[in-house]
């Protein structure tokens, strides 16, 4: 068993090797701890000045619940899509690998502190750091899918983005349907105005 700190270090420096270790060891309990710790710390930092008292407690709690739900939900969708595409792997191992990537959230925390002391450029700093972390998380997510299901980079990217593409597609169809419905209803009302 490798040390958790070493694995997390490798996740920054040598992500491919790190995922090989994570997937082979499959330590889900460690992944759970990382998800919880990272979510709590990053929510505390994010909402340090926004909410106070019970509101802050409630928002941190909500953030933890949402993080766990999103973690489980996205992994289950990716697992389904990876299996459909022909990948063979364990959902538990993908859950573990994706859980480890939550550690990246912590990179933004020191940036919040720096931004707090330089309010003029603070927002820009946070935006840049968040963007970098988001892109890195996507790369790590794709690498995790590659490693767990032994898929090529292209297929893993497709699996990663397919839920988003499906969601956007459904959203566009819904918008068009709703617009068509309202336009049809509006034309009916214009043609036959209600009598009072």
């Amino acid at each position, binding site marked *: 068993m490798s040390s958790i*700190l*070493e694995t*997390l*270090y490798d996740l920054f420096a040598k992500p491919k090797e790190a995922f090989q270790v994570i997937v082979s060891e499959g330590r889900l309990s460690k992944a759970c701890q990382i998800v919880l710790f990272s979510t709590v*710390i990053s929510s505390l*930092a994010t909402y*340090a000045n926004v909410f106070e008292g019970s*509101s802050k407690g*409630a928002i941190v709690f909500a953030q933890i619940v949402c993080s766990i739900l999103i973690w489980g939900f996205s992994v289950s969708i990716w697992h389904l899509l990876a299996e459909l595409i022909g990948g063979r792997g364990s959902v538990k191992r993908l859950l573990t690998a994706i859980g480890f990537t939550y550690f990246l959230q*912590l990179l933004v925390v020191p940036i919040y502190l720096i931004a707090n002391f330089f309010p003029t450029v603070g927002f820009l700093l946070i935006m840049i750091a968040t963007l970098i972390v988001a892109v890195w998380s996507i790369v790590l997510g794709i690498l995790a899918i590659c490693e767990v299901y032994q898929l090529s980079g292209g297929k893993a990217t497709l699996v990663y983005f397919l839920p988003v593409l499906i969601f956007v597609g459904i959203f566009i169809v819904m918008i068009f349907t709703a617009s068509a419905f309202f336009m049809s209803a509006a034309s009916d009302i214009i043609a036959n105005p209600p009598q009072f």
Partner: protein
Amino acid sequence: MMRKKMIMVLFSIIVLVSVAMLTFANKSIDKKMSAGNKIAVVYVDGTITGGHGASGLLSESGGTDSLIKQLHEASDDASIKGIVLRINSPGGSSTATEEVGEEIKKIRAKGKPVVTSMGDMAASGGYWLAACTDKIYANPTTLTGSIGVYMPYSNWEELYKKIGIRQEKIKSGVHKDILSNDRPMTEEERVILQTMVDEIYQGFVEVVAEGRHLDIETVKKIADGRVYTGKQAKELGLVDEMGNLYDAIDGTAQMVGIHGKPKIKEYGKNNPFSMLMSTSDKAELLKTLLLNVPAENDVKSVVPMAIPEKW
């Protein structure tokens, strides 16, 4: 191996220290930086009623309990130098109004000024609260005044006879069913109620006279229950300045010696999370309108205060 561990331990320490500083130290820095630089805005919206009002999971609104709580918080916050009371109310219960008025006086006695900004309407109980503050700002078309007291009463005796209803009562005292709608009011009852109305009216007049630095007789001349526009009220000495909420905030900032733009802390404004977790005033209003047929002696929303909301 050791180097990797050391780097990650160092990173963890940086993260934890950052969170600790953001959560605790930053608050004290912020407090020091903004000490005495804030103006609180407390909203008095709708009919002034006692109690909790509408309670949600995270908040409560509508009753004077939450209003007094907000005033307390603003009073206890050392970074707040002055309070602006944004009143948009037709009045309400005399007891609830008096309670809030006393709280305002206590805050002023501690040396923290309270300034009123009138919205569409600050009549009756709304004006009572305004009169307890240091300075009053109103818009030219604000409806204000209505200094007076009344008790609504309807006699439905004839209607009951027509539909065959005769109420029987077993009462412990002669006046226990005072204001009963199934019989005419007796002269003795009228005297009792008139005395109460006069007493509350006298209290109202005294609050206005004291707050506006006018003598009682002058106040009584203008306190015949009529409403005034903001402009008329200024001519009569019931209002100090014409202006909106931001004029009132700037005026308060000048009063307390804040240079530049003051920081504004709003009380009673819901964040999206508390909105999600609390009841909606509109929903409550709709429920009231749709489900509750008003009883004969309910206080209507635009009447002056001085009686309990329901008898």
